């Protein structure tokens, strides 16, 4: 079905899908639909229920955290090939941050409950998908740690 093959191609084009076995990717494509997000559109809202998991095909999404009394900070941007909304797979299925499009963006979107059911039912699919998700999460954790070091900040005391 052309719709699926289109999605399959979109998935295969980026890091998340490229690493999956063809069969698994086709199986996923069948569950997904291609959605486009306009600049400024909010994809996920911090604290809200997350009912969808997505893989960015093109464009750019910003992960933002709001601190009352301060302007919202963008802590990370999600590039094509990366995934968003992994909270849809991990209880309590609430968004840990707000995700907003900073340019027109296309996302391969999965319905959260449906994807979870599929994963529960199919260990092979589960293994393939969850490894991918885990890798994405760990990469973000590493990145966050490095950002914590604030490496480019000026040193308190300088000899010159």
């Amino acid at each position: 079905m052309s719709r699926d093959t289109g999605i399959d191609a979109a998935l295969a084009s980026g890091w998340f899908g490229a690493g999956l076995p063809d069969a698994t990717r086709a199986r996923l494509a069948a569950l997904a639909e291609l959605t486009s997000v306009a600049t400024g559109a909010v994809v996920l809202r911090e604290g809200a229920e997350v009912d969808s998991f997505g893989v960015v095909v093109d464009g750019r999404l910003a992960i933002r955290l709001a601190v009352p009394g301060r302007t919202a900070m963008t802590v990370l941007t999600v590039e094509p090939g990366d995934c968003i909304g992994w909270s849809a797979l991990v209880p309590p299925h609430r968004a840990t941050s707000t995700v907003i499009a900073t340019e027109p963006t296309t996302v391969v979107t999965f319905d959260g409950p449906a994807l979870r059911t599929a994963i529960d039912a199919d260990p092979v699919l589960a293994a393939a998908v969850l490894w991918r998700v885990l890798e994405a999460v760990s990469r973000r954790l590493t990145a966050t740690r490095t950002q914590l070091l604030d490496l480019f900040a000026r040193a308190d005391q300088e000899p010159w």
Partner: protein
Amino acid sequence: MTQPVSPVAQGPIRWLPLDDLDRLLDALRADGRTIVGPVVSDDAIVLDEIASAGDLPAGRGAEAGPGRYRLTDRGDAKRFDHAVGPMSPKRWTFPPRAPIRVARRTGAGVRFASADARPAPLALIGVRACELAALGIQDHVLLDGQAIDGDYRARRAATFVVAVECATPTSTCFCTSMGTGPEVRSGFDVALTELDEGYVVRTGSPAGSALIDSLDLPVADPSALDAAAVVVAGARAAMGTPLDMTNAHAGLAAAPEHPGWAAVAERCLGCTNCTLVCPTCFCTSVVQKSDLDGTTSTEERTWDSCFTDGFAKVAGGSFRPHGTDRYRQWLTHKFSSWWDQFGSSGCVGCGRCIAWCPVGIDVREELAVIAGVGPVPMPQLRTIALAAPASAPATASAPATASAPAPALGGYVTVHVDGMTRETADTVTLHLRTTDRRLLGGRPGQFVMAALPAFSAAPISISRFRRDGLDLTIRAAGPATRALTGLERGETLGLRGPLGRGWPVEEMTGRDVVIVAGGIGLAPLRPLIDICLAARDTIGTVRLYLGTRTPADRLFVSEVGALVAGGQMDVRETVDRAGPDWLGRVGIVTQLFDRATWDGRNAVAFICGPERMMQATSEVLFGRGIDLDRTWVTLERNMSCGVGLCGHCQLGRFFVCKDGPVFSLAELGPAFTMEGL
């Protein structure tokens, strides 16, 4: 004055009766020389000016052990029958304090003049074999290098050496283990062997021969020569079986994490005594002496030590924060990395560091504990061709002229500020005008020492070369950099350089190029980017990855914009954090390529940023197929002299200022990631 001589003495061996020593001294004084020799003062035999042989410590000896030194009374007439005291000739050839430069602020601008010594002719009396070896080592370090210490050169040339064979070594002596004594072999003008009735006199240089001939002394008779031989043999025997030092070099290099370091660090007081009594230690700091209104300042070269807190300090703290790190630095440098840097050990076995350590730490014991490990391979430093690529562009880049050798310590050039560009809240690019060919002949990645009167000079990377000058991009962090970024059009400052080894631009020819910059690390890479643009046709794909703290901290914003638009290279930018107005990428710099699909097997990488960032980056690039010998980084260290003479910026076997600051990861090896080296 002292010239390298063959072990064989020049001319006949002569005899000087004990009571005639003053004839020798008078002849030296007649030469207009100040005479420095051993005298008893404050419970020790030290070196000081002497008026006559009567000032020499006749009948006095010295016993030393770890942390202990006592004068003894022999009651005989011998004047040199004592082991070395706390002072060495270094005090005269490389004095504790020496003015090296004067800076003045005049109506015309700033002016720098070197204050080279005009030392009075000197004669050192009673120099031992270990001390001759030490002089030889300092000659090599300070005179044979890329740059020359003018003050040392002048003092050394004015020095006449009268050596004396060592008769009574003490328990801290181990010259036989270091192969430097006790026999006086070379490096002297005149050598004496002291016997009960007089001295056997050898000459070791034309000047020595001339002096001795003028005394017309009798030829020494054979019995005296035999007695002399017995004296030296006795000294050698007294030191017992030499230690086997063959393992020290490789063993120490292989043992940076040996538990022995922590153990000795608990005893070590970090008092600096071992380094300051050492006859070969040459580490110094430059002290600013400025007048009340800062218009005139003198830079004074002062003995420093790798044991002081401030020695390895750079932005954000010290590279060797713990006593463990500092003791390891001292022992490893002396017995191991000295070989890599200067082709010999840095120790001559005089034992001063053992005797004059207040807690009696004995390097011989520490070596036994720590250095028993097997050898490690030592990658060799790559020499980087000094010529820029043939296709050197007409516009901005390093000119094709080979850069001259690094200047001696004195050489500051006054340059004019043509204009300033404020890059960020605390960072300014100075556009400087100069006609100095050495400065204009610099290469990407090299740096200069930038100085204003009364402020300590700051090492600043060159951020652009122009036909008529160069750019420096400076972040106002300390007082000196604040003053530099406060300069205005028409004002002047002093530059010394270009210094160090720049980026190996020729490595790019026929290869893909990956350039990764973190924060102000973009500045030293900017000239390299200029070359990429100019030599576009000789280079493969160029990828430029930029990481910054926040959008407000981005450097050269319009230039980077032009690069993106120009499409001649793939430029990607990210910031660590940003407000909602920033629509670009956010995240650490490695995210720009850690999921990229390009193949790095024919790429060369150039990275500049905080060390932690460069480590993370190089790991990812290695994953992309860029090998360690094709990954080049530039290091920040406490660079103060800029020419490898002060010791501050040592990293393992390198002086970052002259061997670097650019290194390939293959060259650095473990030094790149190990803390405290």
